[in-house]
């Protein structure tokens, strides 16, 4: 951490002692969320461009045909990949997905998978052939809280997704069978601890001051949780984070579905 980062962190922390955030938001207030579904619709069956404050994430869905898992021969397959593109931050390096990208991808994936958001049973085609939904998250500008932006983007893009036509063993590009069957809208909410406070949707300055964080992904139940980073929570703090996450997810879900 260089001196500028240290000063920012210090400033954020001291404001927080008075219960204030650097951009004057309430502790449980998200930055503005803008969702442009169908951003890459000329090529991708589904997509969504997310602005979460000045964090920018583009999620695209590709639909391929492949083999099911041997233990679920009649279910489709989903897979989630996150690319922390170096354009998004001078701190990201080029190269294969690293620890941070993998963790984000796996947390986003679990929320969608465990909530059953994609009705995988409807993605069966014929023996040994099922649809594979590739969820590719492309992080373009890291202004903080890319995990929530990725999660919001992923389910938004899935809601935008059309199922391609498939005839005689061939995918017909540009023709559609209907929508991808989506059953619910899981939303991740990341709670970070700064001093004795919990706040949601940290911006970049707040991430420097963050002690640790907990992401809770909910539908009408909890579907995924992930504490991430060095540092500790009390069990009361965890409970508070869960409450907040249910509440915020409900608000965000309306924006996503709206």
């Amino acid at each position, binding site marked *: 951490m260089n001196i500028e980062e240290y000063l920012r962190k210090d400033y954020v922390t001291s404001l927080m002692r008075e219960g204030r955030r650097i951009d004057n938001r309430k502790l449980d207030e998200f930055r503005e969320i803008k969702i442009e579904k169908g951003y890459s619709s000329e090529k991708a069956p589904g997509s969504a461009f997310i602005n979460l404050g000045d964090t920018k994430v583009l999620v695209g869905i590709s639909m391929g045909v492949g083999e099911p898992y041997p233990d679920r021969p009649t279910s489709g397959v989903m897979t989630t990949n996150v690319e922390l593109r170096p354009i998004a931050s001078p701190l990201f390096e080029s190269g294969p997905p690293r620890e941070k990208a*993998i963790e984000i991808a796996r947390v986003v994936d679990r929320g969608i998978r465990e909530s059953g958001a994609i009705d995988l049973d409807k993605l069966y085609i014929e023996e040994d052939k099922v649809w594979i939904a590739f969820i590719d998250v492309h992080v373009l500008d890291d202004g903080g809280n890319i995990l929530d932006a990725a999660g919001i983007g992923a389910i938004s893009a899935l809601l935008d997704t059309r199922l391609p036509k498939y005839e005689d063993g061939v995918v017909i590009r540009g023709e559609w069978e209907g929508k991808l069957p989506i059953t619910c809208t899981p939303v991740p909410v990341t709670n970070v601890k700064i001093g004795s406070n919990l706040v949601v949707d940290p911006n970049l300055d707040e991430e420097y001051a963050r002690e640790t964080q907990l992401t809770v992904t909910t539908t009408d139940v909890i579907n995924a949780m992930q504490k991430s980073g060095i540092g500790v929570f009390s069990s009361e703090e965890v409970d508070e984070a869960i409450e907040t996450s249910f509440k915020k997810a409900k608000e965000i879900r309306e924006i996503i579905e709206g």
Partner: protein
Amino acid sequence: MEEIKMAEKDMKLIVNGKRLDGRNFDELRKIKMEVNVLERTVGSAYVEWGNNKVLAGVHGPREFHPKFLRDPTKAILTCTYNMAAFSVEDRKRPGPDRRSVEISKVISDALSSVAVLEKYPNTGIDVFVEVLQADAGTRCVSIVAASLALANSGVPMKDLVSACASGKIDGEIVVDLMKEEDNYGECDLPVAISPRKGDVLLLQMDGNLTRDEYTKAYNMAVDGSKKIYEMQKKTLLDSMVNFVEGEQK
């Protein structure tokens, strides 16, 4: 994919109020712990927990490479979680996959939260976890073994790390899932705590839990962790006694 799951979706996991292996809902599997089991590490531990067999060892504090990533205020603790190819029924290709990268990270985070890393600026402390046989819950077994190995190495710690998972099977909240319960269950909630203060060091969840089920499951995992803590303390104490007795011989 760790293992192929069988297609029997309606497998009953609770029969007559008992789990498939005869355990009660709040009962842990059999556990065996040992420290100081390797010669080339500064600290090591071995844990058998149900059918899991996990070895942990520590190298360092030692020079950290590359130089420009050193931290002048503290040691960088890195845990590497690795599964032997033959630790699962369907052979796992050697080398890190995405799952092991994530587990390595969450264990590193948890251990770093209690180790007094400030004592060793500019160095690296490397904790290696080898899963020799896997049967659900390996991340908890690994963190327990890693914490023992770290304590055994003499790196000062504010507290031990104890861990245990709970989950939901056939609609019931139970502790410490074994393989079949993990495969066909509805939820997995691994928790690691610093047992003296009760702080949460690791918390992951996947599946589905209502708000109330979560509270029940969380408490069950914490209770399990506390039992583990007692075993960890005894193991470390016994090793010191052995050490003293060994010296006197």
